[in-house]
């Protein structure tokens, strides 16, 4: 379908920088999420692509056409808003036909395509309803149908699930993803919900303080965050204070607080003596009574055990620091009571060393 490229996109409001130097290349048919905390500039980025906000600097290309100077109606970009923006004075059929009428499509074809679109979003028979007579989920489907019926080159979604209740949100997550896949439409999805981004996206761009700090597949983002902000924003991480002893092309030796040393995967640009954080996800920590060969390990004391049903969560003290571990509550797994002296293990390749800024 269409390739989107953002080059050096920058926008400030009265001197307050909302988006700075955003460079992204989104492949044809890709589901790309912009993920980040509130106020990081996700919506502003999306609104620049839609044409509602003029960037101070930078270019936006769709299939190589620079669209920065085009008004929204000449961009062929479909957008679904957080509040759905269904026209309240038109019924569902007229809402969906709106874009086709603007494109001067002839009447019989409009009728046909509106019918198809309603079928596609599972709302056949809703033609005569008005916005007031639709639930949130139905409004969202209408909003999607209204956009998709015009066959836009790209689809923009700004937190489309945040107004729905939790169950519906789960359902719509997969439904939107499936629809997107079957249409193969290039999609930019804005959300502050990491669960949505991880399950729906082909790739994610994590934003913080007006910048895109990391781009990657959900697996890459989660398992190799490569950035302290991304690590803490997505999922949960143990951040152990350490000092680099030795940094080679193959591995890093780290000294943790109490003098114990561990190995970690290599990272460029680190020098001996540098203060760093060792990042370990709670689910990557294995607990055992005795050291296991081939794994990194630290002697630890169980401080607290929190039963969570499917998971058991431990708070440990190791190397003079506090560590959280999560263990699947499976049959045959030993449980440890507070006060137990055990060893906390992990696969070194499941950890990351990040410099402290």
């Amino acid at each position, binding site marked *: 379908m269409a390739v989107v490229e953002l080059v050096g996109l920058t926008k400030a409001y009265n001197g307050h920088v909302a988006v700075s130097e955003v460079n992204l290349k989104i492949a044809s048919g890709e589901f790309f999420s912009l993920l980040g905390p509130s106020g990081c500039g996700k919506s502003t980025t999306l609104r620049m692509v839609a044409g509602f906000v003029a960037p101070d600097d930078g270019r936006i290309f769709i299939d190589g056409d620079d669209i920065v100077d085009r008004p929204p109606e000449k*961009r062929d*970009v479909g957008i679904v*808003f957080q509040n759905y*923006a269904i026209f309240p004075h*038109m019924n569902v059929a007229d809402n969906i036909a709106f*874009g086709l009428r603007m494109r001067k499509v002839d009447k019989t074809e409009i009728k046909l395509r509106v019918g198809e679109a309603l079928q596609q979003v599972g709302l056949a028979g809703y033609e005569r309803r*008005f916005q*007031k007579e639709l639930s949130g989920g139905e409004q969202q489907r209408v*909003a999607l149908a209204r*956009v998709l019926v015009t066959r836009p080159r790209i689809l923009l979604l700004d937190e489309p699930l945040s107004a729905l209740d939790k169950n519906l949100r789960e359902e719509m997550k997969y439904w939107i993803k499936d629809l997107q896949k079957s249409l193969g439409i290039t999609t930019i999805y804005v959300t502050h919900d990491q669960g949505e981004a991880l399950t729906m996206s082909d790739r994610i761009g994590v934003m913080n303080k007006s910048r895109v700090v990391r781009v990657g597949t959900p697996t890459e983002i989660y398992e190799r965050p490569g950035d302290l902000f991304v690590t803490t924003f997505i999922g949960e991480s143990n951040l152990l204070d350490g000092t680099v002893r030795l940094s080679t092309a193959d591995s890093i030796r780290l000294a943790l607080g109490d003098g114990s040393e561990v190995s970690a995967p290599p990272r460029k640009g680190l020098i001996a003596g540098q203060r760093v954080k060792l990042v370990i996800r709670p689910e990557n920590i294995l607990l055992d009574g005795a050291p296991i060969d081939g794994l990194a390990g630290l002697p630890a004391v169980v401080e607290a055990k929190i039963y969570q049903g499917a998971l058991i969560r431990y708070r440990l003290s190791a190397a003079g620091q506090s560590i959280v571990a999560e263990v699947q509550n499976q049959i045959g797994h030993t449980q440890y009571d507070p006060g137990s002296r055990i060893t906390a293990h992990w696969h070194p390749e499941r950890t990351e060393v990040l410099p402290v800024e």
Partner: protein
Amino acid sequence: MAVAGTASQLTARSRRGVFGFGWNRLWLLVVPMTLFFIVFFVLPVLSMFALSLDKPAAGTVAAKGDFALTNFIRFFSQPLYYESIFRTVAISIASSVIAAVLGYPLAYLIAKTEHPGRNTFLMILVLASMQLDGVIRLYGLMVLLGDNGLINGSLIRWHVIGSPLPLMYNVFGVIVGDVQITLPFMVLSLIGVIRSIHPSLEEAARSLGASPGQTFRRVILPLSMPGILAGMLLVFALASSSYVVAALMGGWKVWVLPVHIFQQVSNGGHWQFGAAIATILFVVNISAIFVYQAVAARTSGGRI
């Protein structure tokens, strides 16, 4: 007895929550307003109706109850009188249309001005023009529109025209006066409605392919209709019943219903005939409400 009553009221009250009224007692809140309304509106209007059905008797103010349609027959049999209905309605409709056309852009500008300082400034501009007494504003207009007023004076001095243009003491002058007096009401009624149109509707229309003009015609204007109609009804009511504007700007040459009423009552002491004309004006205004309802229902597109 009294003590027991208070105690049981107190427990009842605590069960009913903060306001101390159950739904069945909420109507107590509107008693003062209702009394005011009955004494100062319903009674005078009823006595006016009654008076309009009395036989003409110069100088008599109180209704006697000698039922006769004399006043109405007289009104509807003389073109001098019944034509003034059409004149009144035409002037009022023209005023409300012009006020809507002139007021909409200003209301839109104010509704879309986000900067708090600028917004307050524009609002003060609108409200201040309302605070100034109508008569004073009309004298201002007369200075502008009179035969040797600013406009005619300048045009004659620059030899654009030889004799003054008829800008006042005619229907045109009355409409200008009505629009001038009612414009703030129109603008206020529009601002609220335009503000309530969510900006994302405009953006959705644009990105679906509508130009700014199409967006206005197909989304903003239809959604503004409730405010436009309410404003027009307000202007219609004010313009159709304004004696001051018709007298000052029309100079007793534009015979609308309020001028007839004033002439009958004040100059001739013909209270019964005056009351009959007032009743007719009242019916005209009530009909306007029905027209408003009908149009509102049609333009709301199923939203009610």
